[in-house]
């Protein structure tokens, strides 16, 4: 190979103790390789638990909240439920009274009697 008169680069000595350090790294690599199946299984189990916590529990709580909301009378018509007969209460002259529907011949007119 062609070499010029003067070498371009000086040859440096690597820091001492490199071989000993490499031996340590090889040993620790071997022990970590031996550990990895156990570590992987533990990690997988932790991941599954975390997924359950993140998705299952909020979903359950949400279902309960949804159920409570759907029990409200406002959803009767939307859900095709039979409306429960509820008394009509109104305030008249600072008094709470019950109103009773009276049959009317005109469908556009509703008549109530106050008790």
């Amino acid at each position: 190979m062609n070499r010029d008169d003067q070498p371009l680069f000086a040859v440096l000595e690597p820091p001492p103790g490199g071989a000993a350090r490499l031996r340590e790294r090889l040993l620790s690599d071997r022990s970590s390789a031996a550990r990895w199946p156990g570590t992987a299984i533990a990690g997988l189990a932790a991941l599954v638990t975390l997924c359950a916590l993140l998705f299952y529990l909020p979903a359950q709580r949400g279902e309960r909240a949804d159920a409570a909301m759907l029990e409200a009378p406002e959803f009767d018509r939307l859900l095709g439920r039979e409306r429960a007969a509820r008394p009509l209460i109104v305030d008249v002259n600072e008094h709470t009274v019950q109103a009773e529907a009276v049959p009317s011949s005109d469908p556009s007119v509703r008549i109530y009697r106050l008790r």
Partner: protein
Amino acid sequence: MTGIDEACWIEHYRALERPLYNVVYRWVWDSTESQDIVQEAFLRCWRVRGRIRAETFKALVFRTAINLAANHRRRKRLWRFVSFESLPEEPVDGGAPPGVWSRALRDAVESLPESLKRVLLLSELAGMSYREIAEITGVREGTVGSRRARALAIVRRKLESAGGRQQ
């Protein structure tokens, strides 16, 4: 290299540590990081030792070390860019002999395209033949020769323009 033990691996390391270190050093310009990269290359090859053929071992270790060094350098550059950190005026490394840190030489080497730099460093610092370099870099021997000549011309021109020839 199936069946090779750790002691034998360490012997290979001893034989190649210095040339590898010198090549890697001209990539990262830090002695501790250079040695770490050389060791990392040996560690990675150790993990796949069962698939390595003895005749390609040297090329594989050099190739691995150079790739690691190039990646390391790119990460450092990116970090400098992100953190707005400027390059130090001179490499900070107390263990180096005086005169090694020629800023001009470093700038000249740094200015080379990676393909030229690989060839130059392998030929000048690892003492490899064109055939060996061709094996590592994956190009023909003729290309190795022309790349080395181009790299040397660029470096020498830059050194002359910087007014310094010495390392």
